[in-house]
């Protein structure tokens, strides 16, 4: 980077935590990522949603330089993962989706080994995390259940004191109590200024943790926004009880109303679009009650994944 570029960057503030442009990844003839553009801001918790096989892990492994992109660019904390991989990985911590740990030794020994490779280890923080995650540091690695192995991965990630946490399906195999503790750790990390990139197919987890989300389908990002924005893109269920007969003609002419049903004085439909035209009709007629069901993120997600992005 030359001096003028450095000055411009300083004036514009730090680069985003993650900036992905036109990322393509092919495995032989199979295209896993078909041109992803994504930007994750510093200090936010970013949910990366998608069903299995959508390309979440492939994207994450490109961030870590475990995979080499077929095309496109990846920038993490302002660094190129391939050229500056070592410096970059000193500033981030990663929890793989398929976490495979050594079989030898105890949890404490593994944590110490990783500490030696990272160049630092805070024993007080280690012990605190072990207590919070209900993890026995003296247990032998080969005796750990899959849930406890996940806890080891979480402990290593949150122990790293990193600027960026990249967590791939972090709560796989954790019981609800530990999932709650995990969300608390994520919130604490965000409050401390850490950026969290959280890949998951568990919607409730993302809904509770993430500031913004991206939805990935078949290697393409089909929606990016806040949880509320994403929810707003989903279809709403509408039910109105009229004092008299429903104004069928006017309702039929309204755009975006699907699955219309009239049962006596009750009208119900699924609204796909803005609600204002419907409200304009309703205010001209005596309505006894009106129910508009706010879609949850799951509905939004399923709509998007079904191929009807809005």
């Amino acid at each position, binding site marked *: 980077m030359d001096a003028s570029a450095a000055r411009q960057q300083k004036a514009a503030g730090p680069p985003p935590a993650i900036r992905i442009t036109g990322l393509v990844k092919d495995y032989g003839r199979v295209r896993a990522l078909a041109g992803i553009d994504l930007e994750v801001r510093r200090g936010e918790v970013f949910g990366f949603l998608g069903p299995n096989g959508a390309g979440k892990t492939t994207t994450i492994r490109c961030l870590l330089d475990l995979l080499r992109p077929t095309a496109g660019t990846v920038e993490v904390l302002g660094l190129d993962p391939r050229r500056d991989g*070592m410096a970059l990985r000193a500033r981030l911590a*990663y929890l793989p989706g398929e976490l495979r740990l050594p079989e030898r030794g105890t949890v404490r020994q593994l944590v110490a080994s990783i500490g030696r490779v990272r160049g630092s280890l805070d024993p007080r923080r280690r012990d605190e995390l072990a207590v919070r995650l209900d993890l026995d540091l003296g247990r032998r690695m080969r005796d750990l259940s899959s849930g406890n192995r996940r806890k080891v991965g979480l402990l290593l990630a949150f122990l790293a004191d990193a600027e960026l946490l990249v967590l791939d399906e972090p709560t796989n195999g954790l019981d609800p109590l530990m999932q709650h503790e995990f969300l608390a750790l994520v919130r604490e990390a965000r409050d401390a200024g850490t950026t969290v990139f959280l890949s998951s197919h568990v919607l409730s987890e993302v809904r509770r943790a993430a500031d913004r989300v991206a939805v990935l389908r078949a290697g393409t990002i089909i929606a990016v926004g806040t949880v509320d924005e994403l929810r707003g893109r989903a279809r709403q269920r509408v039910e109105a009880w009229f004092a008299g007969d429903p104004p069928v003609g006017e309702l039929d002419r309204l755009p975006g109303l699907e699955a219309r049903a009239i049962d006596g004085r009750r009208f119900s439909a699924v609204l796909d679009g803005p609600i204002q035209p419907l409200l304009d009709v309703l205010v001209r007629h005596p309505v006894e009650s009106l129910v508009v069901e706010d879609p949850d993120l799951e509905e939004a997600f399923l709509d998007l994944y079904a191929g009807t992005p809005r």
Partner: protein
Amino acid sequence: MSGRRRQLVAGPFGAAWRAGLGWSVVFVLMIVGTVAFWPAFRDSTELGDMLSDLPPGLLEAFGMEDLLSPAGYLRGGLYDVVVPLMFAAAGVMFANSASAGEEDAGRLELWLAQPVTRQAVFAGRVVAVLGWLALLALVVLASQLVSDAAFGLEIADARVVDTVALCALLGALYAGLAFAVAGIAGRPGPVLALGLGLALVGYLVAALFPLSDVLEGWAWLSPWDWALGTDPLVSPAEPVRFVALATGTAALLAVGGIAFARRDVRSA
């Protein structure tokens, strides 16, 4: 060595301790068991008569031309096939476990996600494997020297040192081959198939080519010929033999390291 580098060596070295112990026990049993029969073999006239009836080509192929001398007995019983083949197999298996095996199991990812280069992780595993081969060489050397003294097999220590070192270097060469294949492919199947397969092919080339007038001049193609082509149990090995094996190993390791740094890392 920094704590980081030490850890990158100590981890894979420690992970192989069971295999290292197993190979050590087998080597010791093989050597002690073979040398223990030397006094009976030396004093048996029937065996001498039987060997003299076998075709010279067969005796040469299996290193049994001079089976009643100490050097001939050791060569025929241990150092013509068994010990170098065991070193080659150990080298391939140690290298496979430390590289392609770990990658295939998804366990490399944990280390590659840390602030280290891929080359450093690869190099740490290479040093660990070479360390085990060196340790095995010491075990073989010690058990050979002790057994020789115990059972009255008279052979110069320097000849034994040369021979064991050449066998260990042959093992290192095949470990280098395994690391090269692992660096390129990252899968245990090709590593084991090519590593062990080429070790056997190398032995057959070195053993059988000299029996053919046409192929005799090509025996040098085999690393086995580089290591044991002139009998190091009888006469001092030329330095070029050590250099050739070490250079070949270094070249293969370089290929593996470069290939590993340039490709995708496989996940579990």
